């Protein structure tokens, strides 16, 4: 008679292989780390580790090249889309993605990202929107919320003087070369899982040669928001979501079928 079914533990979740096995410089609770993990998981799952080239921004993710086990280039501030264009045009069969912050993509690099979308470059862009300049110590970004206090808007962002925040997913969705432009958030597990799906789609869009794909990720900066990490996630939910609604802003023909 047989009995006592022995269950041996199996790893069901661990760091993805495309994520380098190393300590990161990110602040405690910063969801840049989550974004990295998701991208690495997607690279693993799609089997792209040996044919992906990443482009890191200038911003807190400047060292992204240390954290992924794929070929990587480190761009000048805001120019990752141009750099990625150069790579992709020469190596159209490789998967090329940029990973950019909101200062990098929406402020200094607005011209480059918009042209990349306009041309329909076959690139995947992971856009980490934390409504602030993290790396330089918390200055206002084009994505900073109205009234949000930052080191360079000490009395809160004054929309009279600086306008309303840029909604990049919506803006880039409006360009004909954009095949996929969505906004997701990293503030809880459910949204993280949805974000991962979007990242996967954004890579598949590139694989299928459908054009420009952007995933905007609402992300926390506990350090420069001056909030404990958990409160920072709450802040995303309470403050950012109303201004930055999650959703699919462009899903071109052919993307659904992927």
């Amino acid at each position, binding site marked *: 008679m047989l009995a006592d079914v022995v269950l041996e533990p199996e790893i069901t979740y661990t760091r993805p292989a495309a994520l380098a096995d190393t300590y990161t410089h990110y602040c405690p609770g910063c969801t840049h780390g989550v974004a990295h993990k998701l991208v690495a998981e997607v690279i693993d799952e799609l089997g792209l580790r040996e044919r992906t080239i990443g482009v890191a921004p200038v911003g807190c993710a400047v060292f992204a090249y240390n954290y992924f086990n794929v*070929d990587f280039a480190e761009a000048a501030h805001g120019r990752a889309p141009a750099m990625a264009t150069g790579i992709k045009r*020469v190596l159209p069969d490789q998967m090329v993605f940029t990973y950019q912050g909101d200062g990098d993509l929406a402020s200094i690099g607005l011209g480059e990202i918009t042209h990349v979308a306009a041309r329909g470059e076959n690139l995947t862009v992971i856009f980490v929107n934390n409504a602030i300049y993290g790396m330089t110590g918390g200055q206002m970004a084009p994505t900073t919320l109205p009234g949000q206090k930052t080191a360079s808007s000490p009395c809160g962002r004054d929309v009279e003087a600086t306008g309303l925040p840029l909604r990049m997913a919506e803006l880039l969705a409006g360009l004909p070369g954009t095949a996929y432009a969505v906004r997701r958030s990293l503030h809880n597990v459910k949204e993280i899982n949805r974000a991962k799906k979007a990242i996967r789609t954004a890579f598949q869009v590139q694989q299928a040669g459908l054009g420009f794909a952007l995933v905007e990720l609402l992300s926390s900066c506990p350090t420069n928001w001056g909030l404990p990490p958990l409160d920072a996630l709450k802040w995303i939910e309470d403050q950012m979501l109303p201004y930055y609604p999650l959703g699919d802003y462009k899903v071109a023909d052919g993307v659904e079928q992927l």
Partner: protein
Amino acid sequence: MAKQLLKGNEAIAEAAIRAGVQAYFGYPITPQTELLEYMARRMPELGRVFLQAESELAAINMVYGAACTGRRVMTSSSSPGVSLMQEGLSYIAASEVPCVIVDVMRGGPGLGNIAPAQGDYTQIVKGGGHGDYRMIVLAPATVQEAVDLTRLAFDLADKYRMIAVVLLDGSLGQMMEPAELPPFADGAALGTPPAWALTGAQGRPKNVVTSIHLVPEDEEQFNQQLQARYAEIARTEVRCHEYATADADLIVVGFGTAGRVAQTAVKQARAQGLKAGLLRPITLFPFPEQRLAELARQARGFLVVEMNAGQMVDDVRLAVSGQGRGGLTPAVRFYGRMGGIVPLPDEVLGALKALAETAGHTPQPSPVSCLPLDGGPVAR
């Protein structure tokens, strides 16, 4: 191959294509535009990459990216456009990825005009971007040389993992002259992508191209490596053209078109009995400073001719400083035209004659002192 009548800009483009350039990124600007337009026609025909970038800023960063793949890539522009590339150039230099830049200079500063000039010497040769970096700089004086130096630029760029610049003025870019094009570089010569290149990390550990060295000690060490490479190049890659220098006691120095014009002036001077000679630097970095130092031992005066307010002249001064007989410094005079005016041989000849009459003495400083911060007398 027989000679063809070629426009400088187009000749450079075709030479680059034959050197195996795989991707061109650029933005229109006079007087360089024919180069871009030639690429727009030819590159797609050959199944290579041509992309008109949205700006020079984007172009240089596309070049940066494409160069990371280890393929031969290039851009071209003219003075204001090159100013916009300074950040990118500093990054590329610091990342040690090879590429070729063509600067067809025009009158400045500012928007200036579209006439030929040489006002970018400093920004190109000394590095107009931040930090200590150098680019190999090749200065053709004829369309044939433009062709030859374009090929060389790619070879040197690859050899040293550096930026190589072909620097010329708008008149050479616009000029047609007979020249012979070299054959296409064979695939073998171009080789497989180098080990450092970003190609997708297939079957090897990942490669990274970056310009960051956050720890000062690392950054210093990296800079020392760069400087060592630059010093090596300064020893091994200097190129110049000389004319009638063997017994010359008056040396004219000029690069590109100015040097070419000066050669006519030197001929005329010889005809008039002056012992004149010409040194036309072909590499501006590395600069032919040793050769100038040698010439300083025989010459009593140097005349530097440029199409700017006097930029290379300082490098000539540095090269000949203390190198004259008895450790003295020979006279170094400058003759320059600005704003897009190309000097004529007659003018150079005139300056040469003036030099002939006065050279041989070390110039004396004029009696000016410096103010301390508060504007009062100098505290010694």
